[in-house]
């Protein structure tokens, strides 16, 4: 199985979720994160001080899928998360050895 991690713009979450479910993905896990990258944050002002918000709000989507779906999932995220503006985010893929479903004890692709 593959873990696909996508760091995306928060307002794109719904689009990504829909793109994935229409591929047949049954579950995913989402975390609010802060991203630092080429996209520069906006400036906060504050009595006597002014500083740039270095970290911008992003959303991290983690989804584990069988090896043969990985490619399609990456493409679906690519398409649905793109705004073509700087800061759209990244996708990282790596290998997962084992997966378990806690409720039933199912393992590996059965667990997803």
């Amino acid at each position, binding site marked *: 199985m593959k873990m696909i991690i996508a760091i995306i713009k928060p*307002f794109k979450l*719904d689009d990504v979720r829909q793109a994935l479910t229409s591929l047949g993905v049954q579950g995913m896990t989402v975390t609010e994160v802060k991203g630092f990258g080429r996209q520069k944050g*906006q*400036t*906060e*002002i*504050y009595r006597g001080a002014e500083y740039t*918000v270095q970290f911008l709000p992003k959303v991290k989507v983690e989804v584990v899928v069988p090896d043969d779906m990985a490619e399609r999932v990456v493409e679906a995220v690519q398409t649905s998360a793109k705004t073509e503006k700087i800061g759209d985010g990244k996708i990282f893929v790596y290998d997962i050895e084992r997966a378990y479903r806690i409720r039933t004890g199912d393992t590996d692709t059965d667990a997803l």
Partner: protein
Amino acid sequence: MRSLLKPLAPGGLAAVLLPLLTAVAFAQETTVVEETVVAAAPTFSAGDTAWMLTSTALVLMMTIPGLALFYCGMVRKKNQLAMAMQSFAICCLVTILWMIAGYSLTFTDGGALQTYIGGLNRVLLHGMAIDSVNSLAATIPESVFMMFQMTFAIITPALITGAFADRMKFSALMWFMAFWSLLVYVPIAHWVWGGGFLGGAGVLDFAGGTVVHINAGIAGLVTCIVIGRRSGYGSENMAPHNLTLSLIGASLLWVGWFGFNAGSAVTAGPRAGMAMTVTQIATAAAALSWLFTEWVVRGKPSILGIISGAVAGLVAITPASGFVNPTGGLMIGLIAGFICFAASVWLKNALKYDDSLDVWGVHGVGGIVGAILTGVYADPAVGGSDTAGNPIAGLFFGNAAQVWTQVEGVIVTIVYCAVVSFILLKIIDLIIGLRVTQEQEVAGLDLSLHGEILH
């Protein structure tokens, strides 16, 4: 062209306001002394004055922090500071405008034009000496009456902000509210309370159902249509981000409304007591009415529902509060809770305008319901007689004509307010633009307009 003018926005506002203020301020400096000649020392009632000072504080509390909280809890997290900011900024802006001209144009004698607008006697409060009296409030100092009325002039434009939440430029907001106050609020308040033609025609509006709520409701509806829906409307989750804040806000509105309605008696006597009573009853009845309707229809009683119902009740009883008995208050509340629920939930969804926080659904519709039901439930045992000696009575007390008088008042207000608000908005849109960019809207107004966020 817009982008060229944009940097002018703050400078423009400041450039118009500050020198103007400074100039006239100094002009007045030298003349204020001679003005203090007053016929005979008036005798003020300390009791009435105490209550009106208190009422002024209560009504100010309705806007800041009451309304600021009520609204800011209902928007998304990224816009909450901007939302609260709007009520606060309007409070400051209208204070100065009311001092400069608003009070004078509303509550002093307009001479030949009195039917339509007040006079210039009190521009910059010129001539309001420490012991002056306004004949509309004979037992308290004019300064207190002026301040009490100021708090009404403040809350009315602040109410409008809920309709176009999350998408208007702050500079456009300030320009719009400045002109709206002087060109819409001031004349309508004069027509109803200041000796103008609506009050003269017998339109009953004890504490501002027409002047404040219908007025704000219509302006809100027009604005939200002109400016368009929030981006993401219908697809993104726009549920209130923190209803605890809204519940505090609604509570402070409720408590402060005692100043609004009972204060509108302008004395600390039985009429204030009865106004407080019917206010409380109508509010509770409307809150329960909305709550139970929602519970039955949608399966769950919501916090947003009960507080919306309470505000709907407060709005609807406002015009009636000095005229109806407790039973009248109860009925007005029950009816208003249900109708405002329908307007905010069904009507809005059917017509697809994005009146974000239901200014029209609650204040507009609630104000209309209240204005008309005042013509139904007005009880002469509470309201007494008018200046001509005729009992102030509604349909149920033998005076069916009052209903039509009320409807006329409503129509005049709606038409005038809608037309002027529309023109104002179009002009401002042309010159500096009403709406933030799509990018600013997505980032949230807190950061993009004010450079501040919640940590």
